[in-house]
């Protein structure tokens, strides 16, 4: 079984490659990258005018299974990821039961194998039940294959406990993915605290709720020497703190979400609950700082924080709606439209932030295109325009603030281990 991808613009950040090449895939591996490859097989994908890049990796999704299958399942979330060009996704542990023991980790792997689409890498909980009290079964979960630890959605409130978690996790070389939010400071808040929350009469989440925790977690990482990955950065001060910490040699990486560089708090104006996310949409200044952080390398990765919720959960009063929006299927389009077309990032930098760097954060030998390397490949038409439609999602949910928006950049095919798992018809 072979596949020949012809005449695409192959862009790879690791090998610093950017040019028109053919890629021959045999089995699960890339066997050859060269010009004018002739294949006996007639299984050819014509990628003329398209980008051929390493399979995208999303460090931050919520698959909702087990426990909340009405929002998303491992299968539907994998389908959404494949459609969005992702070949690997990391799923957060806030399921029911929580991914805090070997059994649930094994279940996620088994279900994703059944789905047979993208690579699903579970992120294990730091504390049992995400309660911030006792450490979860970290060694067991590592043995079953978790790639990182996180209490995402919650901060480990106790600095003492997080310190111990870091020390313990470092034995297994597992990074800690930090959801930086002081829950006392953010208590009751539903959007960014500022002019818009004042006008709309909605309770604000002050930016210090994030900044103080970014600061604390960086200091704990410095002290323990553990790898820290800061999730969904939303404030300009957080970008500055991470930049400084990196310069000082702290082992810290970070990610931002497409909605945090595409939208500001002004999107909340009509009380559309699909603008309710945590951390909240911030200000224009924050958006600019995030873009700058992406450009200068402070922000290493772009992750979606894909957070499906059913229509009935979101079709309610703003303060009652749950936090979260879906992102798998719009991420690439937003990156192309808001970052590439506006001259913020080059295609090579996109590849770095959506494939190479995420692979490094979770210690996987992925994220690049090399002969002999794994054949996880994404093919993108960078010029194709499309409109985000409510009924167009393959995710089980449609809670997106981008419905109706025209994006440039469409995923044409997603290839996992040499197998086409999504192809745009």
């Amino acid at each position, binding site marked *: 079984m072979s596949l020949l991808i012809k005449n695409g613009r192959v862009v790879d950040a690791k090998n610093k490659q950017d040019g028109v090449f053919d890629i021959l895939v045999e089995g699960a591996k890339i066997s050859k990258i060269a010009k004018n490859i002739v294949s006996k097989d007639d299984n050819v994908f014509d990628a003329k005018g398209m980008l051929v890049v390493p399979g995208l990796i999303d460090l931050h999704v919520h698959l909702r299974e087990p426990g909340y299958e009405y929002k998303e399942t491992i299968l539907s979330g994998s389908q959404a990821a494949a459609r969005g060009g992702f070949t690997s996704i990391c799923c957060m542990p806030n399921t029911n039961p929580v991914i805090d023991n070997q059994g649930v980790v094994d279940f996620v792997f088994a279900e994703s194998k059944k789905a047979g689409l993208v690579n699903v890498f579970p992120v294990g909980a730091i504390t049992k039940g995400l309660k911030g009290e006792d450490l979860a079964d970290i060694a067991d979960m590592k043995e079953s294959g978790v790639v990182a630890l996180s209490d995402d959605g919650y901060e480990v409130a106790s600095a003492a406990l997080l310190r111990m978690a870091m020390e313990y996790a470092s034995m297994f070389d597992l990074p800690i993915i930090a959801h930086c939010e002081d829950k006392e400071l953010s208590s009751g808040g539903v959007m960014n605290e500022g002019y818009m929350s*004042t006008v709309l*009469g909605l309770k604000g989440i002050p930016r210090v709720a994030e900044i103080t925790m970014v600061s604390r977690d960086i200091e704990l990482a410095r002290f323990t020497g553990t790898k820290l990955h800061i999730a969904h950065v939303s404030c300009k001060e957080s970008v500055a703190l991470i930049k400084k910490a990196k310069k000082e040699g702290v082992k810290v990486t970070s990610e931002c979400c497409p909605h945090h560089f595409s939208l500001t708090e002004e999107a909340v104006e009509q009380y559309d609950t699909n603008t309710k996310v945590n951390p909240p949409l911030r200000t224009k200044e924050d958006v600019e700082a995030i873009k700058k952080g992406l450009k200068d390398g402070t922000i290493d990765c772009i992750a979606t924080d894909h957070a499906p919720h059913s229509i009935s959960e979101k079709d309610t*009063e703003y303060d009652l709606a749950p936090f979260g929006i879906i992102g798998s299927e719009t991420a690439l389009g937003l990156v192309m439209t808001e970052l590439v077309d506006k001259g913020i990032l080059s295609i090579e930098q996109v590849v770095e932030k959506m494939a190479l760097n995420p692979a490094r954060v979770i210690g996987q030998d992925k994220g690049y295109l090399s002969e002999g390397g794994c054949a996880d490949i994404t093919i993108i038409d960078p010029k194709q325009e499309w409109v985000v439609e409510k009924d167009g999602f393959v995710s089980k949910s449609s809670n997106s603030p981008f419905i109706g928006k025209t994006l440039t950049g469409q995923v044409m095919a997603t290839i996992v281990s040499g197998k086409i798992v999504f192809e745009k018809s």
Partner: protein
Amino acid sequence: MTEKMTDWKRKDLLGIEELSAEEIELILQTADSFKEISSRPVKKVPTLRGKTIVLFFFEPSTRTRSSFELAAKRLSADTLSITKSSSSIQKGETLKDTIKNIEAMQVDVIILRHSSSGAHHILAPQVTPSIINAGDGCHEHPTQALLDMFTIKEKKGKIKGLKVTILGDIAHSRVARSNIWGLKKMGAEVTICGPKTLLPRDIDKMGVKVTTCLAEALKGADVVNILRIQKERQQVGLFPSLREYASEFGVSREKLDKYAKKDILIMHPGPINRGIEITPDVADGKYSVILDQVTNGIAIRMAVLYLVSQAGISEQQE
């Protein structure tokens, strides 16, 4: 003023923010012509005969609910009153489903008070009846601001150029926000005053002067609108004690004599906490127009009910 005023085209009254100065003026003038009806021996005109108006209050209310109900009745509309405890919300029905069911009973106007900011803005485009906001969370309370402006205009002859101070818990006040929008649009200078913990972030960007000093807020003011201080705010640590609040921000005769102009108007949307944000001698004193506000509330609500009902008719005819 031109002969033909702006036409009222809105199905709903959701807030003051989206209104133009002309629309506010139209409501005030319409209210002016309705005010006289309430002083007649027979307090009823047939204007809204055959209309059904629903009063749906998810939060406790005496003034606003009675005022709307009397306004509707004096215009000959039929009214139906529902409260949270008597509705199926108690059984877990969503607000949207409840409103959709009321809509199915073919009512014309729904007057809604709800604790969630923006609840009305989400619902209004999804239903046919007019939605009138009788208060949404900390967001807006448009008819209160309208009756406040009506009272100011009645007592001072104008709004433009006046200095109006809004005092107290601005952060949690829908009355404050609606008044700020309205007064700014009508050309008043607005100062807000209260403890820093009760002033919302970036409120200065609404075009108001901000101070935490009561003396400064009273000096030169033509009007001071004193907001109710909710006792539960103290319990969550927003200020140390009611005693301290009263001494720093409570309006007393003594402070008025010391700092305020002789003809200052004292307003309060009610219900008042005597001895906390306002002393009894001020509430009942010669500067106070607190009960005039209540009287004017009916005229304003008659005007609003009339205007949104008219808008509905002309829309159907088109």
